[in-house]
């Protein structure tokens, strides 16, 4: 049975929901407004002159090439991994599942750093592409596997019996089941690769974020930085638009999972190579590299235990509170756009995604600007920092929550309403419950991102707050690689907690199948 998502006859969203979503999305407008102010305050002449520099075009093309190639690779590799993980029986499944989520826990700058230990000459487009791809694949793998877990294999089997080849039946029957999830994941990958700075700076690939950082660091030219960042915003809007075009009308099917196939022996190694490529590139190699640096350090500094503990505590606390706050902002947007596709809803969703395409330093400075002007009492408080996390990472929760809510068949809600539930009760009893795994995925993705965040944290944190990421930065900037190692290790461990949880969300649900 196939139904289209969206409460068919009602095309206009309820006012309160739309208002809440609009309010939440307006958080993402703060950096854009700030950038517009900075870009034109020194005169439109300078704005145009900066925009027309050949260097800007060069940087923009590099950004586009990187984002496009990383997104395409993640889409293919992620879908393939998810298909192998959800439709086939593999040896040591739990471990493989867990490993496939682990790249999320490693900051991209650590991956780049670890690779440079082994191969110090790495630089340019291809290494940057490889590192970002390896780090980003789980953004596609996880939601796609979750979607397949809940979808039926019936149609694929029907297509096969009707004489279609495996590839054609995949595209006509299997692919549509996960298209929405795959595209939502790809959107995150695309925006993330536009905004990434840590890895590309170490691997020396000059993108727009490189240019933005250079504007701040040597020219102290905030106008130039703002112009470059607005180019990023424009690119982000194109990415969001493209994803929406590709997503089209979401199609959901009532789940009736099939038993999974047994992988033939001769294909097993190939299958493992696909699934484990990203974890090997982004976890194994860099961790070994960090180990090498640690053992070659001559002066192991004594670990300041209380300070270390407080950094772990701050990282955990910020991630928990921050990701819940992200959820509070993302849910209205997700709930709105899951059911309504009018112009207003689409606009709200598009705006909500913008923060993800901007480097942390830009979002941080925009909140300094906004905070001092509007809520000076909250400046350099935890509130401001948490709000920055909302702007930066709300998009991570919007997509997965939206696809989860959209997948709840309206028929089920109708049943609940017929049984006398109020809209709120049926939301709580039906929608929220069925979409809970997807909502949790978004929340955990945000928590991981918060743990790894550096530039905005440095700018906005209360002076006495240190996170694992800021401590790691302090030590590597002073070439104290030995002293940095415990912090790097702790960051990886702490961030793998939500990553492991992400993989168990999937496996718990999968156990229901057998």
């Amino acid at each position: 049975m196939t139904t289209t998502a969206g409460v068919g006859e009602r095309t206009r969203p309820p006012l309160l929901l739309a208002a809440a979503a609009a309010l939440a999305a307006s958080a993402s407008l703060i950096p854009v407004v700030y950038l517009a102010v900075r870009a034109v305050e020194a005169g439109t002449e300078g704005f145009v002159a900066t925009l027309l520099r050949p260097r800007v075009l060069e940087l923009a093309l590099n950004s586009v090439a990187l984002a496009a190639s990383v997104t395409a690779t993640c889409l293919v590799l992620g879908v393939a991994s998810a298909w192998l993980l959800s439709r086939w029986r593999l040896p040591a499944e739990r471990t493989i599942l867990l490993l496939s989520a682990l790249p999320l826990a490693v900051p991209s700058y650590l991956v780049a750093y670890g690779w440079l230990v082994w191969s110090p000459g790495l630089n340019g487009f291809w290494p940057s592409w490889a590192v970002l791809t390896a780090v980003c694949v789980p953004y596609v793998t996880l939601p796609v596997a979750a979607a397949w877990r809940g979808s039926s294999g019936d149609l694929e089997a029907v297509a096969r019996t009707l004489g279609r080849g495996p590839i054609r039946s995949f595209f006509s029957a299997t692919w549509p089941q996960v298209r929405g999830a795959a595209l939502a994941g790809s959107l995150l990958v695309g925006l993330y690769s536009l905004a990434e700075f840590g890895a590309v700076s170490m691997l020396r690939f000059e993108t727009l974020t490189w240019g933005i950082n250079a504007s701040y660091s040597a020219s102290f030219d905030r106008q130039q930085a703002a112009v470059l960042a607005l180019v990023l915003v424009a690119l982000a809007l194109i990415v969001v638009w493209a994803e929406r075009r590709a997503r089209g009308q979401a199609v959901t099917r009532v789940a009736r999972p099939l038993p999974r196939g047994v992988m033939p022996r001769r294909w097993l190694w190939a299958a493992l190579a696909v699934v484990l490529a990203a974890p090997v590139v982004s976890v194994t190699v860099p961790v070994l590299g960090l180990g090498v640096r640690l053992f070659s350090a001559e002066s192991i500094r004594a670990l300041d235990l209380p300070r270390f503990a407080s950094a772990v505590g701050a990282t955990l606390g910020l991630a928990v509170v921050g990701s819940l706050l992200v959820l509070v902002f993302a849910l209205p947007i997700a709930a709105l756009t899951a059911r309504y596709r009018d112009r207003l809803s689409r606009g709200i969703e598009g705006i909500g995604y913008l923060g993800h395409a901007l480097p942390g330093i830009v979002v941080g400075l925009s909140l300094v600007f906004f905070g001092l002007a509007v809520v000076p009492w909250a400046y350099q408080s935890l509130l401001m920092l948490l709000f920055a996390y909302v702007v930066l990472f709300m998009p991570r929760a919007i997509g997965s929550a939206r696809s989860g809510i959209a997948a709840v068949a309206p028929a089920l809600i109708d049943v609940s309403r017929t049984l006398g539930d109020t809209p709120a009760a049926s939301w709580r009893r039906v929608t929220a419950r069925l979409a809970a795994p997807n909502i949790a995925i978004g929340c955990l993705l945000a928590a991981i991102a918060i743990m790894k965040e550096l530039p905005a944290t440095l700018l906005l944190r209360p002076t006495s707050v240190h996170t694992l990421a800021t401590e790691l930065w302090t030590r590597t900037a002073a070439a104290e690689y030995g002293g940095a190692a415990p912090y790097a290790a702790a960051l990886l461990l702490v961030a793998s907690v939500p990553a492991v949880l992400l993989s168990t969300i999937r496996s718990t649900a999968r156990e229901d199948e057998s």
Partner: protein
Amino acid sequence: MRTRSRAMTTLFASIAAVAVLAGCSAGQPAPAEQNTSDAPESDGAFTLYSGRNEALIQPLIDQFEQETGIEVEVRYGNTAEMGALLLEEGDRTPAQVFLSQDAGALGALAKADMFMTLPDDIADAVPAGFTSTDGSWVGVTGRARVVVYDSEKLAASDIPDTVDALVEPEWASRLGVAPTNASFQSFVTAYRVLEGDAAADEWVAALSENDPQIFENNNAILTAVNDGALDAGLINHYYWYQLAAEVGVDNMRAQLAYPKAGDPGSIVNVTGAGVLQNGASDADALEFVRYLVSQQAQQYFVEQTFEYPLLPGVDAPEGLPALESLINPELDLSDLESLADTQALLSKYSLL
């Protein structure tokens, strides 16, 4: 509809609750109150924004706190971020003092009129060429520009003693530079001032045609040379000492060569400090900046960070050429107009 709106109200109430909680629990950095009297007063504490690394600066601050009893609240970041942060905060900044890794950031803040003019006893402590021309900030330490080279592939005698020779074809694809970094831009500015714009244009053109290896900062160049991935690079001397302290002097594959005195490649970049306008009435802030150019603090930098002291009478770290041989004639490294010309030159050849 009623229940839905109640749900929404609950939602917003919880946002507000989180907001209030977070706001209350956070330390509130009220902008320093301006004293009405002219004489600076001491309240036993001030806030410092440091663009220099905690590992290297905090021990000195601890020493200062111990000796004076003044409490220093320090916010660490890199110089670029702290500079941008201060420009964004403007006169609402909670900071009274800014300690910077390079002169350019100090120049940018001086141009935005964010610094008070330092009293003569501080401003004049450091010789001209290594400090501001108008007393808006004072130079604290110096970092010599050097050539870092891979000692397993090259001998010290292979390294030319002028930067002009480093853009010859034999160095094609072998030289690392960090054109977006303040320290490299200061060097190009020095080239322009010392040799003239035409000569600087030629040098940058030659560099850009020679397939230079582009890095983001000094540390990245040094690491690449030390790992054998790059033959040579242009950096500030002091990063070498940091890495040597970490891995051991004897294990350093990268070695330093100093361009000959008078060569534009031999200039000194300075770090410095300024007192922000809202620290003008804060005696503690001034006391700290005065301390930075004292005999004791300068000695600390010599011994702990291997930087050049800028206070006359304090000897340079052992093994380094004398500061006098690297003198910065006619240079104002915080002159932003001059910096803008340098950046125009670098972008003309697509290095920026």
